[in-house]
């Protein structure tokens, strides 16, 4: 813990450095999304861009957590709280996602017939329109 005067002075330089890094990576994110020669994958937005964007965001978030939020020298209990929150948020996303894209699917047409306006695109069991 940077409790001593020197420690804090040193830490301040680190904070500035991290702040700059965050600025730089923000610019990188925007460039990946907008500049053509940095547009990976297909032309325009696609999952490759999404992955890169999210990875940069995750990296930036990690920097904020470790340095600004002092997680780099924090008690294990704090990690426990935070990781628990992340794990639960992950469960929330993962299991909902799984339940919506079960590897074994019922035939959608059985469920959608007669339930919805057929002039609209067919809807699957989840009440969502078929995307593809």
């Amino acid at each position, binding site marked *: 813990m940077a409790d001593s005067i020197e420690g804090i002075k040193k830490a301040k330089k680190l904070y500035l450095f991290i702040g700059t890094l965050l600025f730089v990576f923000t610019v990188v994110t925007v460039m990946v999304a907008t500049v053509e020669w940095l547009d990976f994958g297909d032309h325009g937005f696609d999952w490759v861009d999404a992955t890169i964007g999210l990875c940069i965001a995750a990296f930036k978030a990690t920097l904020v957590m470790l340095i600004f939020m002092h997680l780099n020298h924090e008690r294990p209990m704090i990690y426990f709280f935070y990781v628990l929150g992340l794990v639960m948020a992950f469960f929330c996303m993962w299991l909902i996602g799984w339940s919506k894209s*079960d590897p074994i699917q019922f035939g959608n047409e059985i469920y959608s017939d007669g339930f919805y306006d057929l002039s609209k695109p067919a809807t699957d069991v989840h009440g969502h329109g078929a995307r593809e």
Partner: protein
Amino acid sequence: MSAEAHDHHDDHHHVLPWWKKYFFSTDHKTIGIQYGLSAGAFLLFGFFLMIVMRWSIAYPHEPLPGYMSWMFTDGWKARWLDDGKVTGETYNMFGAMHGTIMVFLGVVPLGFAAFGNYVTPLQIGAPDMAFPKLNMASFWAYLAGGLVMCMSFFMESGAAKSGWTNYSPLAGYADKQIVNQFLAGQTQWLIGLVLLITSSLLGSVNFVTTIIQLRAKGLTWMRLPFFVWAMLVTGFLLLLAFPPLEAAGIMQLMDRVVGSSFFMPSGLYSASSGAAMDLSGSGSPLLFQHLFWFLGHPEVYVLLLPAIACVAEIIPCNTRKPLWGYKPMVWSVIVLGFLSFIVWAHHMYLTGMGPVISTFFQTTTVLISVPSVILLTAMIISLWGGSIRFTMPMIWAAAFLPMFGIGGLTGLPLAFNLADLHLHDTYYVIGHFHYVVAPGILFGLFAGIYHWYPKMTGRFMDNFLGHLHFWPSLVCMNLLFFPMLTQGMAGFHRRWYNGGEGYIEKGAEGVNVFGLTVADKISLNEIMTGSAIALAVFQLPFLVNMVISYFWGKKVTSDNPWDATTLEWATPTPPGHGNFTFDPAVYRGPYEYSRPDHDSDFFPQWEEPKRDAPVEESEAEPEKQTTVV
């Protein structure tokens, strides 16, 4: 703590004005009692709604009798009753609000907030909660949320009518005819919910912090009373499970107020206006169900754990022997808490989830019964060989065990996809969770009330009235809920406002998969309704008991009237502001009853050992535990 920092605090013990002492108090005990009283009031109100519903089920063609309908004004009756009979709309409204009130405004505040607030700081030897002002804010947010929800009964739209689960798209569109959406019951329900979630968030942060930070000297993790462990886990459940529902609540609020389509699928058609709805569509109704049950299932354990916690305190005290399997129980409760986050979709087998994910949830659901059974079994084994004192709390606690057992075991068929397809939304489900909540959890909480009443008031509750409360309640509860299981297997749907008569009238006579018919079992309705009314009557002795014991009950002769071992009994009776008159230190585990090396049959945690120095199991232990928890 540096002395100069706090000397201005020292002389703050002057007399507070009465409104600060009783209403805007920051004392955890006052707040606990405030929670208890308001939760009790809400429970009675929810109970009343249920009796009206039960009347409609058993006597759908008969006007409400005078002893129920006097509550309503003529104008209200003209709006909501059809010639004095309960209409389907009114039934739905009462049903939705019964569930909401009982779960969110009654049992959780009574179990977690009232008992948790009163007992937890005392049991860990803390002067108060870690954040007393937050604690007060939490109570007032809860009360505001509850009142907002209930106020809507008097509005033109009536209260929410889309079930306590508030599924979209129904809940997203109900009451849409009300031009100012903030005056619609369905919207107020959501606003109330957001307030309640805020309240429980503040509460749970407070509880967990208090338990982690304010434990008395020597109170290491494995010396915590089981009650505190249960509260810790409950705190985490509320902390992490509620926010997704808050997100869902906010999204549904947006759907209602600004017309978004988070949970409204494409192509919705409104029968009442005869036109396609003016919505963008492409929302996902199932997303709401997922987010709701992400809270909904941990919520079941939020209801349950405080009751188990009370019982786990009362059993060792009244059997005069240690709690059997304290450590396994602690681990069970932790595992239970963790698993409860990943079982939620067993409420949703019928939504067309694929078989793979159903199997996953089936597995976790069956897994979670293991820690539950460990908890129950440990408490049953704790009775074995004890010299049981059948005091009032012990009787309730003893009844809790089989009642909760029935509730738990009847849940097993529901855990399996195949059986659940038949039983989903029938009275079987209702019977199952009411066995858990009413004769289970409420009995546990009643036990707690009888147990800690002497600490709160300095007087015992009356035994005769206690028995008059207990025995009829036990009988009526079973007469009310057991037939539900049979009816459910015969296919009674949970939302029939006329108790199945309309179904029979339509000539539907098919025998269902269990070989039962609705016509066979419909006559049970009257027995159940009769028991429900009797049950209401037999709560009167309890209410009377609460009041008269406060003034005329038998006085306690010591601060530790039950000869218990945990720290709350080391305080003065009733405890003053700041709780302890000495600096509490803990020297041993929580349930040291009938130790052969000790002269009395209990060895309180705070009693200094005569011969040896306090056995400090090293200061490092708590930290080590923390990382594992």
